[in-house]
């Protein structure tokens, strides 16, 4: 017993893979791309700014995966929320725009949650369907047109603004990670999510409302995707149906590489942050290396495959 305890402590290499991987890739680019400006403050800040929406989506996904469910629809929620905000801001004050964007995300997440938690439909199929459904709705909302966001306060808060010379997107990232981590690790809600994802029957017979926990996890994920949509709209000063479309693979990879189990019961918010930063760094580095788009996709695919394989490989599994 004592022996296997020590053994599991030593095996932390796999558990902390994300941090080694992050450091490895960082050092690789820092050396090979030194002359291309990878290490400049400006470039590094840019990476964080560009990954902010993905990081926020990743936090939502950690909650959903940990509860034993999955959400494939968050990319579509991003687009619907961004468009909703942009449309509302055309004729209504700031606070209405924010509430509409966030509300749209929460509402879609809640819709997913009701179908999954109370009708017990598999979340994979439910969110696969709502991914398509809301991607369609995003397209039809504005007839594929892009909607400009001209409200300066909004673009300041959710995009290019600064507070004490810290870019607002960095502040959003830090806030979301900090609060996400505390909720995940240090509240009863977080503990119940992990219990439900690990052993739903044990959670149920302990008096935890399993359905409610699943509903809240999916709703939270929708709300965070809504926030991510507003960050996109703020930074780009426009909303379009394509927002969030290409984030599905990146965000899932970031979360899995960050140490969250695909089948529930364990995960890490900080790991997801580093996973997301690693994906951003990879994008940035491959562009600086001068790879064309198709080569970038191939290299990124291979690296994600490698990272996911390494972090999911269970040497004790039959």
């Amino acid at each position, binding site marked *: 017993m004592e022996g296997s305890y020590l053994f599991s402590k030593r095996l932390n290499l796999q558990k902390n893979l994300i941090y080694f991987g992050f450091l490895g890739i960082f050092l690789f680019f820092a050396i090979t791309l030194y002359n291309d400006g990878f290490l400049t403050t400006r470039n590094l800040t840019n990476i964080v700014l560009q990954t902010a929406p993905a990081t926020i989506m990743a936090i939502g996904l950690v909650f959903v995966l940990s509860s034993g469910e999955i959400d494939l629809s968050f990319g579509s929620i991003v687009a619907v929320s961004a468009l909703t905000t942009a449309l509302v801001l055309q004729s209504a004050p700031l606070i209405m725009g924010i509430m509409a964007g966030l509300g749209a995300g929460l509402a879609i997440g809640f819709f997913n949650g009701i179908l999954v938690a109370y009708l017990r439909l598999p979340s994979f199929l439910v969110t696969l369907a709502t991914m398509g459904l809301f991607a369609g709705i995003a397209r039809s909302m504005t007839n594929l047109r892009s909607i400009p966001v001209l409200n300066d306060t909004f673009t300041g808060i959710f995009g290019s603004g600064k507070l004490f010379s810290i870019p607002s997107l960095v502040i959003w990232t830090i806030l979301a990670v900090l609060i996400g981590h505390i909720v995940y690790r240090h*509240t009863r809600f977080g503990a119940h999510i992990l219990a439900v994802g690990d052993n739903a029957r044990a959670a149920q*017979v302990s008096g935890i409302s399993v359905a409610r926990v699943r509903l809240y996890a999916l709703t939270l994920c929708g709300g965070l995707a809504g926030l991510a949509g507003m960050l996109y709209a703020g930074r780009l000063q426009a909303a379009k149906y394509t927002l969030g479309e290409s984030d599905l693979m990146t965000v899932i990879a970031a979360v899995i590489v960050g140490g969250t189990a695909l089948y529930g019961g364990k995960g890490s918010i900080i790991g997801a942050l580093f996973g997301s930063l690693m994906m951003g760094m990879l994008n940035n580095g491959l562009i600086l290396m001068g790879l064309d788009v198709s080569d970038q996709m191939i290299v990124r695919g291979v690296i994600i495959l490698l990272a996911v394989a390494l972090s999911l490989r269970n040497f004790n599994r039959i």
Partner: protein
Amino acid sequence: MTEFQPVLSLRGIHKAFDGLVAIQNFSLDLFSSKIVALVGDNGAGKSTIIKVISGIYPPTSGEILLEGEMVNFSNASSSRSRGIEVVHQDLALVDEQPVYMNMFLGKELTKTPFGLLDKARMRQESQNLVDGLDVRIPSTNLAIRNLSGGQRQGIAIARAVHWASKLILLDEPTAALGVAETAKVEELVSSLRERKLAILLISHSLDQVFRLADQICVLRRGEQIGIRETCKTNKNEIISMITGVD
């Protein structure tokens, strides 16, 4: 409340799962400081009775009275809040979580002002608990996954003992245990009488049942065959009640 009022009374409990009758017309009184054993072959309906009492399955019909008051638990949290605890056959532990989180599963301690988990206190109280009941584990920080079968069983029992204030339901608590551990759990179950708890014990070991129980209730394919005082019956009678063969 009189000395002789049962802690829990079941009256005419029926339970059917989409047509399949799992329990029919089951009645039983459980008294404080008394151990009743529930015996019967596999699939007789023993675990189902426990789940009906603890609010996990609603009975199809029948009445449940807790200290004379009719109750209708809709989930495990309502029965737990009334002092009823279960050691489930599958233990109901969360593998990836540490011992102390399992000990407080569904009843996590929080601290002011933000209502965050009080992990230090949960660790400390869990440690006291496992020490007090002599459950030997290296640390309460260890995930359940890293414990042996016997250690897990010890944790599940310790958890139930900790929270139970009226009634404890044990579904084969020694199923995974070795000889020494079984003896220890039997001693513990016996000592629960001193805590004034009412105890319902499910076991396939008739030796154990005769060692521990004050009364023995026999179930065969959902049918209640009878209740005997342990001191007024013998194994042969119980075996023939279980199997239906004389």
